[in-house]
């Protein structure tokens, strides 16, 4: 059977990996290559790696680094950050990155979704949406949570699927770095609006949070930042990931062996 995916999400800057809180206060985590090596050893299902400054500081994706990451990784990677056209995407695919995450660009050029999906297939075309909850309503933001997009959330999710996107990652700005549990209303909303794979990100505090998502929604992607890079209430940097026995428990004993 197809298993749920438990996905560490790593945030890249020019100075290395960081972790944010509500998209602010980036805290240095470590060297990206080394971190990927640790997740190899821990046999993570997949990785999401997002360059959070490429668009806002207007620089090209760090091809040299992405090439090294793809070469080192023994698990699939979704890379996002600073991709504005098909040529850039082609270059990143040529390194062996499986999936490209699009964000800001789709609001000025929605067609880039079908361009990339025609080239690489929809399974490799991912949209990453940063969502802010305000007065019980959900809004899409870009530029690290600074610019609000004037689109109805529900309609836009439908539109993305019509364009041929293969996966949607929803990242809760309110929950980012809070380790206060997932926003289940948001998960529920996105789950019933989609017929494609989805990944939810933002708020995971422990493995039981992940277990609760799996219980309710089955084979979806569950991503987390802080949970997999910090240990303890003082948030000491320590790369971690569920081991086999943890996973069997998370997957609710659906499978004997993972």
């Amino acid at each position, binding site marked *: *059977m*197809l*298993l*749920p*995916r438990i996905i560490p999400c790593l945030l890249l800057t020019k100075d290395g990996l960081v972790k944010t809180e509500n998209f602010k206060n980036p805290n240095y985590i470590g060297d990206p290559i080394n971190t990927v090596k640790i997740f*190899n050893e821990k*046999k993570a*299902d*997949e990785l999401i790696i997002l360059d959070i400054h490429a668009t806002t500081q207007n620089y090209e994706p760090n091809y040299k680094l992405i*090439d090294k990451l*793809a*070469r*080192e*990784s*023994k*698990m*699939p990677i979704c890379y996002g950050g600073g991709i504005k056209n098909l040529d850039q995407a*082609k270059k990143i*695919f*040529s*390194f*062996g990155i*499986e*999936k490209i995450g699009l964000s800001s660009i789709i609001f000025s050029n929605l067609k880039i979704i079908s361009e990339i999906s*025609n*080239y*690489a*297939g*929809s*399974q*490799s075309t991912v949209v990453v949406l940063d969502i802010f909850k305000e007065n019980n309503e959900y809004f899409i933001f870009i530029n690290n949570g600074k610019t609000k997009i004037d689109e109805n959330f529900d309609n836009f999710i439908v539109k993305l699927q019509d364009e041929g996107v*293969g*996966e949607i990652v929803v990242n809760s700005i309110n929950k980012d770095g809070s380790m206060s549990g997932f926003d289940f209303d948001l998960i529920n909303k996105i789950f019933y609006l*989609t*017929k*494609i*794979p*989805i990944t939810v990100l933002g708020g995971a505090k422990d493995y039981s949070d992940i277990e609760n998502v799996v219980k309710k929604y089955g*084979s979806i*992607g569950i991503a987390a930042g802080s949970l997999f890079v910090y240990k303890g209430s003082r948030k000491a940097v320590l790369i971690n990931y569920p081991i086999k026995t943890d996973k069997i428990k998370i997957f609710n004993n659906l499978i004997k*062996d*993972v």
Partner: protein
Amino acid sequence: MIGIIDYGLGNIKAISNIYDKLKIKNILVKSEIDFEKAERLILPGVGSFDSAMNLLDKKNYIQTIVSMVLEKEKKILGICVGMQTFAKKSDEGSMEGFNWIDGEVKKFEKNNNDRLPHMGWNSIKKNKENPLFKNIENDEYFYFCHSYYFKCKRNEDIITQTSFGSNFASSINNKNIYGIQFHPEKSHDSGSTILKNFAIL
């Protein structure tokens, strides 16, 4: 010597990296001479059927690959869309495939519970024993990422099946031609085992 065909698609470096760690000699195949040097070939792939065939055509690799596989009988392993190019044709495009293994590439039919693309870790069931799956348990998990599957005409060409809605061929073999739908280079230890097995078939 394993030759990983470099045509602009797929995880060639990740595959080569795994072989380096296994201390198995490998080259990235970029020219006629490289094709000659390689004893076995890997055709990787991330992307759509037509992109793959177009890129192979643009590089003038198609005739060379055909001669390596059919005349020189070198073993070839197709990965993901690489495997799909071994079919006659695909629903995903209008280009012709190699037509080496009897079948066509079809899109998964949508039913209510399964979300397309088929993306993530799924298990295999052996249809028969095959040296490519030596030291791989039944029910082992591999990473899949695709919306189209190889619909095999002949049951004896199917090595393993995987369930997604219904069963599909997750690996195939006929004579010196092998195909796997999942990504061994992104499937941790079980994936490395498959790549190792291919090197010593």
